[in-house]
């Protein structure tokens, strides 16, 4: 893991809300993390944990009508992105940051040819001419392993399979060789064999281009295969973060443990039912001061009713937000 070097991206206390007609949903509540150069950071959590909201907030992509960033800092190249002008953010998106969305079926414009859409980032950021951008687009298609790129450029999204469309999306995100790639569940909408191909492709491209990757997923299997470090999110907060080996070998937060236990194992004992986590994630309209996971936690005890624990160190670069982890402040006193 490349540590020691200055991180390429540093997020501090990021908070974002969605507003509905009669409530405010606290989707992201004080998320802080760093991303090292060339590092692959896994971001896991169930639906609604705030993974995507946090990443969209970084780049000013939250829907303006219904959501807004309410606090924090996002440091990139010494700049706070949350306070950057819309124009500066726009210039960074696509050139320094690539973003791959979950559903390749809806992320491509059905009425524009693939070539047109692939050429777009090149024309926008590099100011290439139509012809040069076209040639660049063909190279990109070849880069992501789509045969016969010249012909395929003329075609429209509906003439591509799901896996191919995701390859196109990846090619678009990588067009300007970004330093950070945010992959928002890029394999969730694909079937397992295609998933493996896309995973392999991204791993290769990362090696070739040396970019840092934030990989959002709810699939721990994918994380184990690709990430250097993992962040587990629950109810808009980070509950545990650790190097990937440490997380799988020694998960400390009960939520992380429950997630790992919920993974079906082909080699384990055959159980009648999958082990799901009981209950539902909390509603995020009102924030309580206690641990958000308490109602579902198998190991909750009296202290958990008290103030919510902050992230506490567990091991090297391994931290968990749980009362079961000894509080360094208290142990110092003892």
């Amino acid at each position, binding site marked *: 893991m490349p540590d020691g070097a200055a991180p390429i991206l540093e997020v501090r206390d990021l908070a974002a809300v969605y507003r509905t007609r009669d409530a405010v949903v606290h989707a992201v509540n004080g998320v802080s993390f760093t991303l090292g150069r060339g590092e692959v950071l896994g971001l896991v959590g169930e639906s609604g944990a705030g993974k995507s909201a946090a990443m969209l907030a970084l780049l000013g992509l939250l829907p303006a009508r219904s959501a807004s960033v309410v606090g924090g800092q996002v440091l990139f190249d010494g700049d706070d992105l949350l306070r950057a002008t819309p124009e500066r953010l726009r210039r960074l998106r696509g050139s320094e940051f690539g973003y791959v969305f979950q559903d390749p079926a809806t*992320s491509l414009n059905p009425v524009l040819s693939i070539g047109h859409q692939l050429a777009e980032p090149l024309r926008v950021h590099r100011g290439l001419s139509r012809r040069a951008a076209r040639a660049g687009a063909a190279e990109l298609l070849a880069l992501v392993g789509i045969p016969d790129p010249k012909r395929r450029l003329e075609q429209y999204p509906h003439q591509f399979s799901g896996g191919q469309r995701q390859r196109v999306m990846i090619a678009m995100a990588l067009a300007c060789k970004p330093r950070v790639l945010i992959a928002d569940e890029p394999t969730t909408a694909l079937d397992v064999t295609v998933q493996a191909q896309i995973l392999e492709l991204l791993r290769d491209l990362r090696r070739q281009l040396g970019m840092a990757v934030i990989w959002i997923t709810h699939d721990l299997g994918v994380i184990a295969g690709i990430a250097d470090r993992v962040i587990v999110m629950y109810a808009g907060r980070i509950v545990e973060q650790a190097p990937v080996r440490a997380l799988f070998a020694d998960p400390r937060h009960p939520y992380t443990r429950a997630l790992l236990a919920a993974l079906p194992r082909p080699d384990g004992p055959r159980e009648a039912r999958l082990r799901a986590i009981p209950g539902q994630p909390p509603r995020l309209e009102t924030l309580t001061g206690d641990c958000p996971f308490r109602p579902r936690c198998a190991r909750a005890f009296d202290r958990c009713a008290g103030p919510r624990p902050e992230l506490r160190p567990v091991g090297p670069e391994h931290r968990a937000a749980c009362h079961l982890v000894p509080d360094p402040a208290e142990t110092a006193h003892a």
Partner: protein
Amino acid sequence: MTEPLPAIPPRRRGGRGAVAARFAAHRGAVAGLLVLAAIVALTLFGPLLHRIDPQYLDYLDRNQGMSWKHPLGTDNLGRDLLAQVLSGGRVSLAVGTSAMLLGLALGTLVGVLAGFVRWLDGPLMRLVDLFLALPLLPLLLVVIMLFRDSLRAAFGPETGIFLLIVFVIGVTSWMQTARIVRGEVLALREQEYVLAARAIGTRPRRIVTRHILPNVLSPIVVSAALGVANAILLESALSFLGLGFPSDFPTWGRLLFDGVNFMSLHPTRVIWPGLAISLTVLSVNYIGDGLRDAMDPRGDLPPIAGGARRNRRGRLGVLLATRRNGRRVLQGKGE
């Protein structure tokens, strides 16, 4: 048993060639295009072949039926009806097309702005409500009374009144387009590919022109077809009120309404101009229909069972709407 599979037909090329090919496959649209081309050609070149001055008063041949000399007969002043229909078509088509373009441009601009710029949405839509609530005919009356003479003085009687009519129709017929476009833009801006375009740093203006406008093209084309029809009908209504073109400068609407009083005695006087209007409107509608299908790149695929594609109902809906609007306009005269 091991019969070779049928060869997969090669995919058609993308781009303009494909649009033309899909348009050509739409039988109604091709028929509409042929009919419209014929009408346009007749109005442009017909007067060169049928060389009777539409204004020539032939008192001896008043109220004639169809004959070799006057193929469509003559009116109560002895003017040749064919010559009048042919030259009137030029004006009607020109008014219809220009007013439609003006209304469409206004409507699209307002719709896109309202849909895309959040703080403009409320004010612009209230403006649309305001325009829809205005009593159209009294307003037109006032506008034309006020400006007719000054425009005549500035551009000459024909151009002046042409500009005035086009302006008046265009400015009062953009609201539906604006509403449709706004609705589409609101739906489209939430599409994932718009988010994806933003995520690669596309400028807002380019998002509108490259990602949103091509997707609202089909409702715009339908509006255009409707717009031509409406403009022709509205111009007819205005002519009837004596606010349009003077009667020595015939248009289809003018001819229609001049003929109304003689309808029971000489029905051909309303049938021919009426037929010209109907055929034009109908063919424009079919062309619009075909264009909408042709511009959808997924049109190469076989139609989805259950009619998920919108084209089948569109044509009837458009026709009904045209008829309703026409009636509304015509009834406006009786107020």
